[in-house]
């Protein structure tokens, strides 16, 4: 059994306009020591999937179903529908999360020491000195020099990259089994981005944790992840190991994403390709493939574009470990 098994996870938000199906039957696994990237554009359900795992979705505003089983050292836990106080004991201890914008994710009024120590104290009944020592240890681990003095600094006294390091230190203070990194480098400039991704890689091999890396940037995925799930309109549309996905995308959406990455080796003066159209509304999803209206490959499908518009393809395994949701059934794109 895998470390984390998510199966048929659904998250729906009832709104006055209708039911928003933000996550629509998502199934995936994550192993210990592995980085799974979840890629997709805004509104594809990647963040909501992970907020559901963390139990951070408001109970009153959302409907959850499906299952997410996490294997702990001694027991297995069903994360969906866990009671609030039990979930709280897991949050920050077994599962930790870092967020997109380190500028606004740290509390502006408290020192970073206070905030890291607080995270440790929330799950360990130890003296403040123990937590302080642990905070210093973590700050050193994430590469912040002069850690014992920097504990007394406030977030605004750090640069963006340093703040993200602080966030990582805070997330790792209780040695979590799973780290969910929600666009951890989106708000950072490119050189800092590379440093943070490298740091995450190093910490992972040191701590043997699983990482779910949420991003919309396939460039980030290439260097940082082992496997990739591509999400579109609340569904996983392709899942493969990173090299396999880059070399041989089976779903036109993935193909479009890959084609829209700027590349140095493709020569100057060429326009970047873009996927025409807009993602569908999550309230009125089409009966068939949600990507069909934007897809340029529908004519090549056996049965034609009508088949794409009327029936939803299943997520099928084409080569070992490479799944795609497309009627093209593994044809070379």
């Amino acid at each position, binding site marked *: 059994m895998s470390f984390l098994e998510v199966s048929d996870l659904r998250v729906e938000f009832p709104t006055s306009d209708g039911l928003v199906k933000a996550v629509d039957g998502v199934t995936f696994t994550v192993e210990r020591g592995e980085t799974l990237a979840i890629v997709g554009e805004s509104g594809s359900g990647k963040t909501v999937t992970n907020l559901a795992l963390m139990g951070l979705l408001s109970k009153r505003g959302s409907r959850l179903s499906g299952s997410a089983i996490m294997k702990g050292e001694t027991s297995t836990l069903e994360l969906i529908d866990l009671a609030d106080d039990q979930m709280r004991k*897991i*949050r920050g201890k077994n599962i930790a999360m870092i967020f997109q914008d380190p500028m606004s*994710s740290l509390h502006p009024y408290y*020192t970073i020491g206070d905030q890291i120590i607080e995270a440790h104290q*929330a799950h360990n009944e130890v003296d403040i000195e123990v937590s302080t020592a642990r905070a210093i240890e973590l700050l050193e681990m994430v590469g912040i020099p002069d850690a014992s003095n920097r504990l007394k600094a*406030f977030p*605004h006294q750090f640069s963006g990259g340093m703040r993200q390091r602080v966030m990582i230190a805070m*997330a790792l203070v209780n040695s979590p089994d799973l780290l969910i990194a929600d666009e951890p480098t989106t708000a950072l400039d490119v050189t800092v981005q590379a440093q943070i991704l490298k740091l995450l890689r190093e910490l992972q091999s040191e701590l043997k944790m699983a990482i779910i890396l949420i991003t919309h940037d396939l460039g980030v995925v290439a260097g940082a992840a082992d496997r990739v799930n591509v999400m579109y309109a609340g569904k996983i549309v392709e899942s493969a190991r990173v090299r396999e996905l880059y070399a041989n995308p089976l779903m036109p959406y993935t193909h479009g994403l890959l084609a829209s990455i700027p590349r140095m080796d493709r020569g100057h003066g060429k326009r970047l390709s873009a996927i025409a159209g807009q993602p569908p509304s999550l309230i009125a999803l089409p009966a068939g493939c949600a990507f069909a209206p934007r897809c340029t490959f529908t004519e090549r499908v056996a049965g034609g574009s009508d088949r794409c518009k009327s029936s939803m393809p299943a997520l099928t395994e084409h080569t070992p470990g490479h799944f795609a949701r497309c009627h093209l059934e593994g044809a070379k794109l």
Partner: protein
Amino acid sequence: MINYLARRIAISIAILFAVSFAVYLIFAILPFDPAALTCGKSCNDPGIIEANRKRLGYDLPIWTQYLIFLKGLFLGRTFGEGAATIFCPAPSFGYSFQEHACVTNSILEALPVTLSLAIGALVLWLTLGVGLGIVAARYRGRAADTGSTIFVLIGTSLPTFLTGLLLLVFVVVKWRILPYPSGNYTPLFESPLEWLNTMILPWITLAFAYAALYTRFVRNAVIETLSEDFIRTARAKGLSERVVLRKHTLRAALAPLTTMAGLDFAGLLGGAILTEAVFNLPGLGRLSLGAVIDFDLPIIVATTILAATIVIVMNLVVDILYAFIDPRVRVAA
């Protein structure tokens, strides 16, 4: 910080001089002869008027008058000579012929009344406003929130003179719970119970109006803060909802309240004219009102300068407090 303080205090003093001069110009600008005003409405004996003009220095150019006024503030001032000499010790704001007293004495009599009124009301409205606001935000969209909205609506719609009169009609006249306001003020240290008796209805009247505004403000500030990224971080750490609300949300949400409360308080110290009039309280508001009706220029000048001083001082106090609350302000300073 010391530099910042010194600079702020220097600026405040400069503003005070500017304000005092602008206010003093009332003597020169208003189409009244200040000397004629000193001898009452039915008086038209040019002898007395001219004598008073000389006695009070109104015959001198306005610049000289202002300098004498300033000198009086620091050293005290003697009016007239011989047997009719009146000495007003420093800080002297002049002599009021309507009250037949040094202006400073009239103000010192009225100030404790207004102070009692403002402090009591402030305590009451902060308690009520902050408490209700937090409850409304915490239980947004439920009965408690609706209740607070109704309170806000009534509180902001009812003018204080109406609330005050309603309280008088019911509590004092119909139900006879409290005695009729006598127009006398009993200092707190003379008879605490008597003092409370006099002040309780004015407090409620003022606090009602302000508490409504504060409830709305606190509710919105708390709701806004709850959606901040750093609150999501706090929850992701596994902190209990109580800690998230008390430690992380309230400190950030209530910081701007310091400014609001400080300035509202300063405004009231200048005299709560309507409330003092309704409850017949001999405070600064009633003193100013009386002075305006009687054209008692020395008192108008004094109360205006006093009100400006209070606003300037409270601004300074608020800024210093804010630096303690928000570490980002400390650095900017």
